[in-house]
């Protein structure tokens, strides 16, 4: 029936095409979900180490030894980054959004299935890169999840600010690329692939929340991507976007005239929408679940849409 004339319907394929490099939105949604689940366990483990350190500051842990101040800051940085990017941004949008959005608007799949697959696997690469930061010389960075320069821009500003920090920024840049691809897909799908009769003002609030989140992501991640590239250039190519004349560890650095505040402006151009990117899908789901289980229409649907 519908599936027969559907250009997006996929015939059963081999294991790899079906479950690994799948272009099916449901499989990709589940992949995103499991990536976020893995990330949440890594993030929780890091916070567990922090809590253990706070309770017993000098305890000698197997494998990790005694947690040093710089290790604590590394845990804090990596916990924050992994949770914000790979859990809060990934699960509600990439996971639930990919799985349910096409179903809820009556679309056969996302508008660009191959792009969808690419955005998941790019996110996966970003996750591998950030985890790699733990294992390089100097370890993971300690500049906090907001990565304020000069701390994050000067290699000698602290342990972990060498290759670890480069990997951290690279991972975020890759994540931005993946999120931009995802955002394009969500926006196009919502605008172009709605079933007949599914007008914008009839869409479930969940769809609205994923749609608005995608627009926010499109605006925010592009800026963060360029900010990250500038930071990488400051670190490795001797530019001075973010670093003025500073003395770090007794050495006059070669930078001149940069502004640490520039990073804050660019970062928070991402950071402010990011809180909505993280919460809007949750609010959409809460509205939808409440409305469904109380068997009533959403109270003030239009107001909710305009509020978003």
């Amino acid at each position: 029936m519908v599936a027969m004339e559907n250009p997006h319907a996929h015939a059963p394929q081999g294991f790899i095409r079906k479950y690994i490099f799948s272009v099916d939105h449901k499989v990709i949604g589940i992949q995103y979900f499991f990536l976020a689940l893995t990330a949440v366990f890594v993030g929780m483990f890091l916070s567990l180490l922090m809590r253990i350190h706070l309770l017993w500051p000098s305890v000698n842990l197997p494998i990790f030894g005694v947690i040093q101040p710089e290790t604590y800051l590394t845990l804090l940085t990596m916990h924050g980054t992994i949770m914000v990017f790979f859990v809060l941004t990934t699960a509600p949008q990439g996971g639930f959004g990919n799985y349910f959005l096409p179903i809820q608007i009556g679309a056969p799949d996302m508008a660009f299935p191959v792009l969808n697959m690419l955005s998941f696997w790019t996110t996966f690469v970003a996750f591998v890169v950030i985890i790699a930061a733990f294992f390089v010389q100097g370890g993971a960075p300690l500049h906090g999840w907001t990565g304020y320069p000069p701390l994050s821009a000067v290699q000698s500003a602290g342990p972990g600010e060498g290759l670890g920090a480069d990997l951290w920024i690279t991972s975020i840049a890759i994540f931005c690329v993946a999120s931009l691809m995802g955002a394009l897909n969500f926006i196009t799908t919502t605008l172009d692939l709605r079933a007949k009769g599914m007008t914008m003002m009839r869409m479930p609030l969940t769809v609205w929340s994923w749609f608005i989140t995608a627009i926010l992501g499109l605006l925010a991640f592009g800026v963060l991507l360029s900010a990250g590239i500038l930071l990488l250039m400051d670190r490795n190519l001797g530019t001075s976007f973010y670093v003025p004349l500073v003395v770090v560890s007794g050495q006059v650095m070669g930078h001149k005239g940069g502004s640490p505040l520039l990073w804050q402006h660019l970062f928070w151009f991402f950071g402010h929408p990011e809180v909505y990117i993280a919460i809007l899908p949750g609010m959409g789901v809460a509205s939808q679940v409440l409305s469904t289980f109380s068997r009533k229409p959403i109270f003030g649907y239009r107001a909710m849409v305009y509020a978003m």
Partner: protein
Amino acid sequence: MGLALMVVIWLITLVSTYFFVAKTWWLPVGAAEAAGFIDGQFALTFVLMGIVFLAAQLGLGYIVWKYRERASAPPADYSHGNTTLELVWTALTAILFIGLNLMGSSVWASQRFDPPAADSVKVEVTGMQFAWYFRYPGPDGKYGATSVKLMDPSAGGEAAVGLNTSDPAAKDDVVTGTMYLPVNREVDLSLRAVDVIHSFFVPSLRFKQDAVPGLNIHMHLKPTVIGEYEIACAELCGLGHYKMHGVVHVVSQEDFDKWLAAREAEKQ
């Protein structure tokens, strides 16, 4: 089940409200002129938000119980919304939010944009990994020149802030590792950083401002109670961030003059 849920919601609400009402964890004593206003604003925000919080949570618990699933439940009443109600609560929230912001902005702005009083004490605060240094301009009232190229944090004191000792205005500059301030006199602060961003945070003086490399940030405050207060760094600045402490001694004008004179004498 509806009853149990209501009890749980109400318990969580009331227990969390208790901690604020009983002030189980609260601010340290406010020892600066702005503290009265800041604490008042803080309390007002908590009271207003507390009322909204209590009303919303207690209401939620009640509704959960009242409209629980029952065999004898009346037929459902379908509603798509109530525009008046929505406009009213959106407007009220907006007024509350914007009003609180406007109230707070005057004190925030006065510390930054108004010029300090004519008789204010000038102090320059310099943050570096992982210490604070304080510079007093001395009897001439003028800071001597500094240069980033002369900064040597490991040497401490004048060298750490990069004081150019060949500048005549620098001859009477005093650089210390502890901060002394006279009570009831305005302090004209200049905030600088050597290496990375730090934040000069004195909870008792209700003062917090980033010190940013490349910028010289001016703010003023007026300590009003004699005592010793802790200075902390409030911007993650590296592996020693946790121990980047300092002490500010707020003393009488007499003691302050004596202390400063002793430092000047040491310098000669």
